[in-house]
């Protein structure tokens, strides 16, 4: 009878209760902490950048050789519409993100307050505080370290490119013909490995600076604990706004990455409002006419890629991709409470009769 507190019932209830409590977020393991608390953040002062691309060269020298060459021939995935993306013969491309190029510099000419201004914007992964690319990776290949570095484990990644699709800037780039999928079912599942900036994780772990920060002759980037970097970005942006003839209170117009996608650990500070920078990038994309070289790169990089656009992220406002999941987490907390309330207030299900309990039919 159910009135006996048997070991079976005790364990059953305990398991369900533990699961419910864990799901409600009332008890957290000691290991967990609020993400972002110990993060390292970078601030880029764009008015210092001269577009020399020393950061790009430094990054390529350090990391390009760590990206493997694909097997030959690269297996054609099934169905045939799944593109093979091979950048191994175009390792020289450095004006966009590729699997062999984690960083490029966007060179812009824009009109600001009646004069032509050159602006150079180093672009790489933004290292979001709560990144959708890693949160939504179904195999745990996407990772966020305690220091805020967002990276992809090439030993685990199957190259499904989901991370790229959910990234607002479409940062990760796929190289087909490499990775663990070759040992599984290379034609039916997976398509390579996704690569992107890992902000020099092995160097940072040894206490060194990322290469792009270290080699920059202009000290465009600075890196440090998130709280101090946010203060620095705000102070810098206030100064930029004032120098631009705007109110220092409008400093948020001069930063990018602070609130984008819920907040990132890459914060750009520009001498002009980012609305104008974003418009200049959009204008540049509209004017980009694929030349022969770009078309060739596009063909080799994968079918359907729009030359001059893919791998070159925009700089417009970005809503928090994870906001919906964060809101729905509240539903996960409230639902068990509602269930318990419904049960204990006898909203459904009456008291069991004392003797005759109907026997349930055996499970089919």
């Amino acid at each position: 009878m159910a009135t006996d507190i048997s070991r079976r019932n005790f364990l059953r209830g305990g398991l369900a209760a533990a699961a419910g409590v864990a799901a409600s977020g009332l008890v957290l393991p000691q290991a967990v902490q609020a993400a972002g608390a110990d993060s390292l953040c970078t601030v880029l002062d764009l008015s210092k950048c001269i577009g020399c691309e020393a950061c790009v060269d430094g990054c390529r020298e350090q990391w390009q050789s760590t990206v493997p060459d694909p097997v030959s021939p690269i297996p054609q995935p099934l169905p045939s519409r799944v593109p093979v993306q091979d950048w191994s013969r175009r390792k020289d491309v450095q004006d966009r993100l590729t699997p062999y190029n984690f960083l490029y510099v966007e060179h812009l000419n824009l009109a600001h307050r009646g004069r032509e201004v050159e602006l150079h914007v180093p672009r790489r992964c933004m290292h979001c505080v709560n990144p959708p690319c890693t949160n939504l990776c179904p195999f745990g290949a996407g990772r966020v370290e305690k220091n805020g570095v967002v990276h992809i484990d090439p030993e685990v990644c199957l190259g499904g490119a989901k991370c790229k699709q959910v990234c607002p800037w479409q940062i990760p780039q796929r190289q087909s013909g490499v990775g663990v999928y070759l040992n599984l079912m290379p034609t039916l599942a997976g398509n390579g490995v996704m690569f992107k900036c890992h902000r020099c994780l092995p160097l940072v772990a040894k206490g060194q600076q990322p290469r792009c920060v270290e080699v920059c002759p202009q000290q465009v980037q600075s890196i440090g604990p998130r709280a101090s970097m946010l203060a620095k970005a705000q102070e810098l942006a206030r100064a930029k706004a004032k120098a631009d003839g705007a109110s220092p209170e409008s400093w948020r117009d001069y930063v990018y990455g602070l609130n984008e996608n819920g907040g990132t650990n890459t914060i750009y500070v520009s001498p002009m409002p980012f609305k104008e920078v974003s418009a200049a990038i959009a204008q540049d994309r509209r004017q980009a006419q694929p030349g022969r070289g770009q078309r060739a790169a596009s063909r080799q990089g994968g079918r359907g890629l729009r030359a001059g656009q893919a791998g070159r992220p925009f700089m417009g406002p970005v809503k928090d991709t994870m906001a919906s999941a964060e809101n729905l987490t509240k539903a996960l907390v409230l639902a068990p409470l509602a269930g318990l309330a419904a049960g204990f207030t006898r909203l459904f299900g009456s008291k069991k009769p004392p003797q005759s309990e109907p026997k349930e039919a055996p499970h089919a």
Partner: protein
Amino acid sequence: MPSRNNFNAGRVSRWLYGLAVGVALFSGFGQMPLYKRYYLADIPGLGWSANFLLLSDLHYLAAALLLGLLAWRLSLQARQAVPAWSWGPRTWWGWGLIGLLVVSGAAKALRNYGVFLPPPLLMILDFVHLGSAMALAFTGLALLLRPLLPKLKALRQPTA
């Protein structure tokens, strides 16, 4: 005998459980980049199945419904109500899998909420969640197909 109300409540709870598990399985498997690759999203009316963020929201809603049902069942059991709510697995194997799914899913929801979890732990949780879901799905499929076994055996027997 259970009252008519209990009978209806049981039927509704079974349907809700089926709905929660069905939506969770569909949206969960859709977290792997399969539906677009294998043309499911090309079927008219199913284009949304290629949207990972929409599928993620659906997965959360299905999980909330399942958690609500679990808590409801727990409370009914605590006060020894009529087992009109006889939904869900009938074996420790089934309840164990659902327990693993709930615990690993809750931890993943915490991560998505912005709580730091060590990456190796997160990968283990990912595979526990995926493995438990696949085991539950295949167990359910096997149970559905079990009644067909005698018929298959009869087909193989030579007729006199």
